[in-house]
């Protein structure tokens, strides 16, 4: 498996990242190195091995449905680049996802 520069560009766009042409070449090379290693691992027959989502079999305790205080609005807004007294402010968006 390998990726083209176009695919790297597309993936970068999905992650909202922007690269120069030189960087794209370098990234494609790096990614293809990684994928080559994956191919190597794929040579092992895993057809009768259950896929593993998590490396450790720990059952994480669940939380009881209790309300605890969070942070105040002032604290919540403090780190935002743009805000008014009540809201986080972002550039206008109209498209819905």
């Amino acid at each position, binding site marked *: 498996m390998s990726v083209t520069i176009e695919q790297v560009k597309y993936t970068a766009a999905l992650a909202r990242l922007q690269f120069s042409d030189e960087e794209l070449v370098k990234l494609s090379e790096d990614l293809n190195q990684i994928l080559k290693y994956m191919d190597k691992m794929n040579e092992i027959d895993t057809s009768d091995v259950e896929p593993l989502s998590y490396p450790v079999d*720990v059952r994480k305790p669940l939380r009881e449905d209790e309300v605890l205080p969070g*942070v105040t609005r002032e604290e919540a807004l403090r780190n935002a680049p743009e805000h008014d007294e009540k809201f986080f402010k*972002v550039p206008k*968006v109209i498209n819905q996802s």
Partner: protein
Amino acid sequence: MTDYLIYEPVIGLEVHAQLLTNSKIFCSCPAEFSVEPNVHVCPVCLGHPGVLPVLNKKAVEFAVMMGLATNCKINQYSVFARKNYFYPDLPKGYQVSQYDKPLCSGGYFKILNSEGKESRIGVTRIHLEEDAGKLIHDSGFGSSVDVNRCGTPLIEIVSEPDIRSAEEAVRYLNGLRQVLQYLGICDGNMEEGSFRCDANVSVRLQGTQELGTKTELKNMNSFRNVEKAIKYEIGRQIELIGEGKPVIQQTLLWDPDEELALPMRGKEDAHDYRYFPEPDLMPVTITDEWLNEIKFQLPELPETRKSRFIENYGLPVYDSEVLTSSKEIADYFEELASNLSDYKMASNWVMVEVLGKINELKLSINQFPVPAVNLSRLLYLIIDGTVSNKIAKEVFTEMMASGADADEIINKKNLIQISDAGQIQTIIENIVRAHPGQIKEYIEGKEKVFGFFVGKVMKETGGKANPKIVNDLLLKYLLKLRTQSE
């Protein structure tokens, strides 16, 4: 002209139901709605770096309950996944949802189809996920973000494309909502967005199996709009096909004012969600023991309750359906009926008087000013003859207005029914004496005059005379007069 009947609509629904937990799904912030923006927040739902989500046990239980109620298989091992997309209502840049290993799958839900026959709508899956925040677009250059709703627990209920008309879609939705409310896990308010629905719609020639190109309808915030939007879209697709034009796979937004569904702006590649297992959450493991506990807690569901109303109370199917349409109404009826022997009478009072008032005043039954126990006392007083049915309705109106109980009103207004035969006989004789003209007519065979006398007696007694006794005594007396004159 396009022949609509040769086409068969194929509809699948995606329903989002907001769960009635106290706290959010992955943090301890309140899940309830707040008018004030950005007050139910903490580093977890704000998406700050380095925080870890912890799953709310109740949210899992609620989702399992809905799975059981829709005959789903409960997957005792299920996995959360990240659905990645950038939108300002999603601080983390991804929504925690479930993907290839949902909590519940492979169920079905029964509805009555357009021909009145039972039809099974497949439930593909029910999974848990977090809600996004809210964007407000009103102010000048930017948009305002309110994070309160971020992390509110949702279940998404995905149906198979088994629905064949807009009416069936509404029936399915109504049924799901009724069950959610019975389970007490969602308030089902479509206008306020705690119960939302998207529809996948396509059409195909009757009798064919292959699916047509589908479109996805969004932004339908009432049952009425769901029905209108689906009807509109079915018509649009049939016309396109009739003209030999292709249906384009796209998302359409319903505009309730223009009654049109318009394509949503935005690039389709925005839908490359790159799901992957959420590394911050362990898989959800539901032990047999836990599953049994949840099964044990499952309340009686609408179908079962309806059957029980028919069997135990001997009520007609129609009554049972109306009375079990919501859990609260059914509870009200059962509390009312628990002290009475005449269940049909109790049913009539709930269906006509109580529900009539509720609809008129747009109340929920929980806001109804006459508690079941008070109404029960009033009905008891009808059965034992203290008041007539007619007077009871007046007392009932007074009970609603003042909140006083039946006995209080009856005593204060002196409304106790006159059942004393001697007293009624005296009144009858006085009235007959005062109306020689009418009595002459009756004797001559004009039966209608009987009603005139009944009216007079009732008027004289302020409507309090026992109607049955009045009828009996009056008939006896008038017939006697008639015989005497012969």
